[in-house]
């Protein structure tokens, strides 16, 4: 609860707009405010085939906002991000919401903007005006939540057990858990990379020689690309065309190059032995690949997908980074050698030496300052790319091994301590002493659990100045806002070991100039209110749209939801250590006919107080029956709930079932049935 309060507080602090609108909600003064049509009506905006009415457009403060929403025609197709055009909206499917924002006079697109958008079913708005709705959303009231909040991000946690947890940082699912979804991989993930539009996540599975492709709209694996070998690090080149996968198999060390259009392997380029790190020139035309066991750097011509040079490095190169500012790739080696390779000539132009023990090296996003983490000397050296000199030697904690950046700080994570050192970027290059900070992300040193992945354990959230950091030893993920002395909140990983953490942005964003879009899953048929807020100029308006019932579920739709559940298994106890086999039947609410063959019947089992949970899909049997086995390893009470997203049914909407796992020696083990 404290955690949740922290989130609510954070949300409260988000924008000035919150404050402003809060005031306006309390004191609507202008006639315009009072007379504004607030309640969404019938006949949705942007539904194909319907004339565009005034409901689709609002002009305020010199800015025109045109609203539309359409289906994407995708529920199961593998390229869910490609649907376009006038496809009808259907419940349970992905919809795309669009706002075209133009200058009222010139008609020119207005850019860049960051609109806030919430979607809520129109029922239950209790005559709230649009401003009142927005005010409540901004207050983060648990009692008034959007069905779809298009202003947030999700955390992705790479676990040690072939899963990726998707965590909603603000809202728990029915207040029980913050776990929003679980992505199941076929093997343990090692490295990952998001596509530039945050629609896909690529995860290397070294044990299988594969790269899993995850659809980030649906949080499901939609494809696996077989690279062979031992894929670990994965990097997308800046123009997004090829995905580069380090192959560390001893017999074929090099890189696999995946064509992101077709998800096929375009080339496998042998570069050398050992661990590889990969960097690109900012024009994407040159790739630089380190070969850890060969003490070399391979330079690859991206257009030809051919190696053009092997340059000798120091002993065991550990990292390569490209400075766009200097147009140079820098390679750091374990023995302290630092080489600068000119992007134009592809030759070594700079040689420097630091102390042996280099573990990591990375440029901050501006490309000016390179950070070299020295594990042996517990130090970070800072390189000025403009002249290749080392300008700072900074004492940090025990065994620094990863570096991440926000706009303001470099975050140095250590293996030997849970403390992370923050180095202020704005003070670099000045002769005064740097004002360092340390923040404890947990209590136990991450190095206690030798499960670090190549993916980052500290990641900026992209919102203002906040990061998330995983600590495998604590089995926790922490949320930290800059300026605080300690993390503001934490997320349980439900017993899993978090090896890396990332963020996926799900907010409305500009997809072409002046056009802001987002995708979401339509919960169910009916009327919706879309609350839209722009902070500068201040524009708030509620649009509306209507979703017709899906023919496949039309006759099921009733006032209380589209389906009903019957638990067929009579037992309510199981011996701890065994699985509880549960059968249940799903049927339409009105007709009562069985609903057979649903492929997305999800079952969530939790054991209070919520520290353990298990998710899986039920297996469809005949006649609308489904079966699932819930592992009940520990004694105690278990709750089982069922959800069917394609019918817009969440975990809280159907009756749930309780069973008890009893200790084997318990005399009640054979009895106590309900």
């Amino acid at each position, binding site marked *: 609860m404290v955690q949740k309060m922290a989130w609510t507080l954070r949300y409260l602090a988000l924008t000035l707009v919150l404050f402003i609108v809060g005031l306006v909600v309390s004191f609507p003064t202008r006639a315009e405010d009072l007379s504004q049509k607030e309640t969404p009506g019938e006949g949705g905006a942007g539904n194909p085939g319907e004339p565009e009415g005034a409901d689709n457009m609002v002009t305020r403060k010199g800015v025109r906002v045109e609203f539309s929403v359409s289906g994407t025609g995708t529920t199961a197709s593998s390229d869910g991000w490609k649907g376009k055009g006038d496809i009808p909206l259907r419940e349970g499917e992905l919809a795309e919401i669009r706002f075209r924002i133009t200058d009222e006079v010139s008609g020119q697109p207005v*850019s860049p903007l960051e609109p806030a958008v919430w979607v809520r079913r129109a029922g239950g708005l209790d005559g709230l005006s649009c401003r009142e709705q927005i005010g409540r959303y901004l207050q983060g009231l648990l009692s008034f939540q959007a069905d779809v909040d298009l202003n947030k991000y999700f955390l992705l946690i790479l676990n040690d057990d072939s899963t990726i947890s998707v965590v909603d940082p603000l809202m728990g699912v029915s207040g029980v858990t913050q776990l929003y979804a679980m992505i199941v991989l076929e093997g343990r993930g090692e490295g990952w990379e998001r596509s530039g539009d945050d629609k896909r996540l690529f995860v290397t599975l070294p044990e299988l020689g594969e790269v899993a492709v995850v659809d980030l709209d649906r949080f499901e694996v939609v494809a696996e690309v077989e690279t062979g070998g031992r894929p670990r690090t994965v990097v997308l080149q800046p123009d997004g065309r090829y995905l580069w996968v380090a192959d560390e198999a001893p017999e074929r060390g090099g890189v696999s190059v995946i064509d992101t259009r077709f998800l096929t392997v375009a080339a496998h380029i042998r570069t050398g032995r050992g661990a590889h790190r990969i960097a690109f020139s900012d024009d994407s035309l040159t790739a630089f690949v380190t070969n850890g066991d060969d003490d070399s750097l391979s330079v690859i011509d*991206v*257009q030809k997908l051919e190696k053009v040079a092997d340059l000798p490095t120091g002993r065991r190169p550990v990292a390569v980074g490209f400075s766009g*500012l200097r147009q140079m790739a820098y390679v750091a080696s374990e023995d302290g050698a630092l080489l600068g390779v000119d992007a134009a000539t592809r030759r070594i132009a*700079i040689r420097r030496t630091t102390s042996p023990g280099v573990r990591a090296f990375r440029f901050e996003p501006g490309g000016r300052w390179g950070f070299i983490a020295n594990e042996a000397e517990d130090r970070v050296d800072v390189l000025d790319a403009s002249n290749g000199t080392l300008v700072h030697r900074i004492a940090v904690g025990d065994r620094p091994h990863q570096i991440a950046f926000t706009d303001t700080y470099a975050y140095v994570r250590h293996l030997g301590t849970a403390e992370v050192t923050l180095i202020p970027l704005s003070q670099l*290059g000045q002769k005064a002493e740097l004002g360092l900070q340390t923040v404890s992300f947990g209590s136990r040193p991450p190095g206690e659990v030798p499960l670090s992945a190549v993916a980052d354990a500290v990641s900026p959230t992209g919102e203002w100045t906040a990061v998330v950091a995983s600590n495998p030893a604590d089995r926790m993920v922490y949320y930290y806002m800059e300026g605080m002395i300690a993390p503001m909140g934490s997320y349980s990983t439900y017993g899993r070991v978090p090896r890396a953490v990332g963020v996926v942005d799900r907010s409305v964003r500009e997809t*072409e100039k002046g056009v802001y879009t987002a995708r979401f899953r339509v919960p169910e048929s009916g009327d919706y209110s879309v609350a839209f807020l722009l902070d500068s100029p201040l524009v708030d308006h509620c649009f509306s749209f209507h979703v017709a019932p899906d023919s496949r579920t039309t006759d099921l739709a009733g006032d209380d939801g589209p389906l009903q559940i019957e638990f067929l298994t009579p037992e309510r106890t199981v011996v701890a250590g065994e699985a509880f086999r549960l059968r249940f039947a799903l049927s339409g609410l009105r007709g009562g006919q069985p609903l057979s063959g649903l492929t997305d019947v999800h079952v969530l089992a939790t054991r209070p107080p919520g520290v353990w949970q298990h998710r899986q899909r039920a297996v469809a049997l005949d006649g609308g029956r489904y079966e699932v086995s819930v592992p009940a390893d520990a004694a105690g009470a278990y709750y089982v709930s069922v959800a069917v997203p394609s019918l817009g049914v969440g975990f809280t909407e159907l009756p749930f079932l309780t069973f008890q796992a009893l200790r084997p020696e318990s005399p009640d083990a054979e009895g106590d049935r309900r």
Partner: protein
Amino acid sequence: MRQPSAPLVRGGRLLCLAALVLLALQAPGDELSPSEARGREIYLDGAAADGASIRALLGAGEMEVELPGAAAACGGCHGHDGTGRPESGVLPFNITWSFLTRSYGHLHPDGHHHPPFDEDLLRSFLRDGLYPGGRAADPWMPRYEISERDLTDLVAYMKRVGEVRDPGLSETVIRLGTLVPATGEAAQVGTVIRDVLEARFAEVNHEGGIHGRRLELVVHEVSDPDPKAVEAWLAAARPFAVVSPFTPHGDLEIHAALSARGVPVLGPLTLHSLRSFSLNRNVFYLYPGLPEQLEALMEFTDRRLRLSAPRTAVVHPEMDAVDDALGAVRDTARERGWPEVRFEPFPVGGFEAPSVIGALKEAAIDLVVFLGIEEELRRLLENSYSAGWRPYVLAAGSLSGGILADTPPALSERLLLAYPTLPRDRRPRELREVSRLLTGRTGDEPARAHLQAVISAYSTTTLLVEALRKAGRDLGRRELVSELERLYRFETGLTPQITFTANRRVGALGVYVVGPGIPGNDRRTDSLARLGVAWVDMEQ
């Protein structure tokens, strides 16, 4: 009979000038062919000087809009270097030749992929707006009605866009210029400036240069303040930027000439008005000029001393150089609702204190703005004291800096001086650096005598180096200017904090007002211990 030939002479000079301009546009090794040069005009301006007729079409069908080419020039969206400067991660695209022709084609953010461009495909794209493969381009990309010749020239330049370097830049060198007086008393100041610049550049080069380039200094000794002589030097020396120029004669004209040629000018040492340069985007000053300093003094008088509508007179030498300052005083008084300002000129070098004072006393003047030099100011104070007349006197410290040190308090009680910087701005570390840097160059004596020049040149190179480091290897004059514009509260260690923006060309926009009568807010740290000091911020 010389007169009839005068127009010819003038015409000849113009021709020479035009030739110099052309020379200056083209760096050795970076020459554009005539076709490319014409293409560059079309790229940047949507038109050519010789009258290319280009129309841009936007939208389709009934929504189609036709614009003159100048309203939809390539460079307007894709940038002078063709890299596109995307806003919010969206269009416009990079259109450099190496990008357009990359072998694996292009993947657009919406998932559309098309094969690479070649010359023919680019030509047809510019006319029909269809990507290779036939799909229509983004609606914001115009289609052009353009003649064969214009298109040929444009495409010829598009193959070079982003490659052509600004003058003064090579693979390994950034050439920077400065201007100093050749002779006279001021020449010693010039030598000091030159020494500081040379020493700083040598130091930067010793530390590895900047993004793979060395700094090189070219010095122009100005013997003839005629801007044409400066232009001839520019054409020959081709500096990338000009740093700390000191041209006491002809500031206005020389700065204007440099700026008009697109040469960034950093930290000129000048007493002259900055206001006349306010539209000059390429000149960056450290300190406010005389008019701004007087405005600040008047504001201080109004707000802090609470003089109620003082009767004001300006006592000034008869010279053009103070015109801006006079205008500033007049306008400021009007804005504040003060009585109309009285102007009391005196011949240069001929200040007759008693007669001026007699007139002003009779007119019951409360406030004197004095623009003479130190010795003249002293006479004003002495004579008004003996005449029993006690007005407030406002003056610029840069004209009469030493006066407070040796004037009896009784005389200077109502004197207020404006200083753009004070010793309190100087940190010991940087002072040591300066002194170390000048060891073996400028002697101690000249460095001390011209400390303001040393500080100005040193701080200017600090700003220059910072901006060059931030601008990166892909350097141009635009990049330098844009990085300077991003300096925010930058500490040089020797001046007040420096901030430039797109609309601000004075780095330390404020002045210290110093005077015995000011309730001092920081008496201990100043060598002028008995004086009060107040900072008037002119940002608001």
